[in-house]
């Protein structure tokens, strides 16, 4: 594994992708909020409506003074956070040549595959294809960690911890945890902060 070096341009682009219902939008918002706690300018791009009904979802978070519009063009993402393998592959063109892909390996089978109309690509095929865009691919099973934290619904917070753990985004652990505590009340707060910490530790072990 190559060492990840903090990006030095004036905008850090984070693309977050997954399946509608996995908590992609929530992660984008909390990540952006945490960045504002650390004094940064941010822009977040979201798509609502049709895209939420179990379909492919992409959110963008742009951090830094130069961020004006919400969109990240192909080749411009410093970090691509993928909640599911083929949904990560679907957005791989966004990654910058030296960008980092953070991917949960847990598969959600699309209906077209269940119906026998399409085939889910093999793990090797997915990783090989990604390798043509960047060599920095970090993969782990975030759903297992979410279960360990106490709920499969905390998957997005595992990915949050892992994203902060890359050291690529200008967001401190404290601000990240503050954003979680602000947004999530009561009993669920414990599960979600635990999930964040598990993701963070996992990344530190992998890097």
């Amino acid at each position, binding site marked *: 594994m190559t060492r990840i070096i903090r990006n030095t341009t004036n905008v850090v682009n984070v693309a977050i992708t997954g*399946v*509608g*219902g996995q908590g992609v*939008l*929530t992660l984008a*918002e909390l990540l*952006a*909020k945490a960045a*504002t706690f650390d004094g940064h*300018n*941010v*822009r*977040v*791009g*979201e*798509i*609502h*409506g*049709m*895209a*939420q*009904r*179990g*379909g*492919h979802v992409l959110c963008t978070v742009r951090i830094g003074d*130069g961020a*004006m*519009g*919400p*969109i990240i*063009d*192909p*080749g*411009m993402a410093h970090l691509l956070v993928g909640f599911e393998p*083929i*949904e990560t*592959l*679907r957005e*791989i*063109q966004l990654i910058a040549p030296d960008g980092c892909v953070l991917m949960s390996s847990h598969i959600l*089978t*699309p*209906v*077209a*595959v*269940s*119906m*026998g*109309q*399409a*085939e*889910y*690509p093999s793990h090797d*095929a*997915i990783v090989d*294809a990604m390798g*043509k*865009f960047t060599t920095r691919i970090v993969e782990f099973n975030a759903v297992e960690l979410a279960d360990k934290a106490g709920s*499969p619904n905390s998957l997005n917070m595992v990915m949050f911890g892992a994203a902060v753990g890359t050291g690529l985004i200008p967001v401190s652990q404290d601000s990240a945890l503050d954003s979680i505590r602000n*947004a999530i009340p009561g009993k669920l707060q414990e599960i979600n902060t635990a999930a964040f910490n598990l993701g963070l530790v996992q990344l530190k072990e992998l890097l």
Partner: protein
Amino acid sequence: MTRPIELLEDAPGKKILLLGNEAIARGVVEGGVRLVAVYPGTPSSEIGNNLTAIATRIPNFYFEFSTNEKVAMEVAGAAAVAGVRSMIACKGPGLNVAADPFFSLAYLGVRAGMVMVVADDPSMWSSQNENDSRYYALMANMPMIEPSDPIEAKSMLLDAYDISEKLELPVLFRTTTRVNHSRAPVELGPIRDRPAKVEFIKDPFRFVPIPFVAYGRHAWLLDQMRKARKISEQTPLNSSAGNGELGLLTSGIAYNYTVEAISELKLEAEILKLGMTHPVPDEKISAFLRRHGRVAILEELEPFLETQARRIAQMNNIDVEILGKEQGYFPRTYEYTPRIVITGLSHILNRNTPINWQEIDSKLRELPDIPPRPPLLCPGCPHRATYYAIRVATRGKAIYPSDIGCYTLSIAPPLETADILFDMGSSITTACGIAQVTDQDVVASIGDSTFFASALPGIVNAVYNRHPINVVVLDNRTTAMTGHQPHPGTGLTGMQEKVTPLDIADVCKGLGVNYVRMVKPFDSLADLVSEIREMVQWTRENREPAVLISREPCALLAAIERQQEGVAPRPYRVNPDLCNACKRCLHRLSCPAIYFDSDTGKAVIDDTLCNECGTCTSVCPQGAIDQER
């Protein structure tokens, strides 16, 4: 996830991260807007969702989810005529529905500020077209403001009220998806008070446009637009920055991409950014065109500003090259990205793009085939059961006019029960047209919110003109697609008041439908199929419309209710000993919770996704699916 309550905070100077639509809702709070009426429609929906959540906490404020956009426009228009600030918000096609009062309001004008927020949807993320609502401002002679991000969505809403009051005209406040659905840090301002009640002062020879009155009002309107043009010349909303050979004229979200492109391309250029895009500032644009040999126009969708720039250049004999969509430098379809702007400008400047996108594109073509993951009906969605039954009962051979809502997703295999759709309410009326000119059975489907929004004239038409159509009302007790807003059938108002709901069956009977029945789609799939068969048979024999109401709350609402009541999840599961891998459940239902485990060779239900509808139990010929105890 910004809690709606945060939008009420009286803390001028504080910055909070807001979605464009939340920023507009905050603008309503700060601007002393007295009445807001909306019909939900993405990308405008969160404006209403946030306002309904805080409506009762704002002194002297009224909010409603109107039955449709035309109704909302009339309610809000009358409030502004009476003398309080009002607002309507809708999606692009919603303004088409509200077009009739829109044109009248321009002639009559208003006594207090009125803003019409219309959210266009370039790329059609959740719309049936990407019509460019800016032409409504041109056609109706209505001033128009276009914010470029959430920060301006709030600040320019306040400007729009000031302009509206100066001109006594409503202002069209046109946004696009990436303004509505972007987040940015927005600085809070002071909150203005609202009047409790005002007195309606009669002035029928202004506000009743009989031909004699309208005759005078048209000239008045054009005079107001001359005043509006002066505002457009002077307002800081229309301003230029930067220096260089090249001029860039832009508005809306494209402005951001233009600034980013200048930085990426390390370009020397002057930008003229228009926040007030109707009427455009002729003199300002004229001077801008004179300063540059070449001016590129950067705007999403139609060449609206481009045409204005060409008009101004021609009128003033300006020798300038105007570069835009007409020559193909920039596209007329879909939303813009920085890449589109950078590529177009690179083409104009005869340079290579700073990033080698061709190389990325060619690598993309080498990717393995990725299975599609389109949006689908949710696990546990009652529409799945109803459409399954419609298909079985009619053997897939009837014509299925569809309507606007989640249920349009039944277009996808294996349900395939959407054959024709024009607009809200068209399921009923397109069914009428088809039934008259074919011998095929016609089974239309429409949701409950859409039913109240625009089905009633169609039902009356079907009854009175005796159209032999079958109508299935998919009553899931909410406006699901746009984020679960209440409607007249739910018993909840925009002010969070509990009222008597309207009953769809009673409404249909009252309108003269002779066949009205009600089913619960999760009771028995076999009964559901025979109900539909009976209805189709009855319509064949009686040659008049029949209505079947399939009532079951939206699966997402049902899941939230179970969670709130602390009911332990009881997902369904496949007994692997009984499953013979026939895949009927997968092929007939396309439920996202069911998948095929290639290791075991059996169907499996993902217990984190299952919403406990049980439809799959009746579809499995082996009786292998059962609910956990």
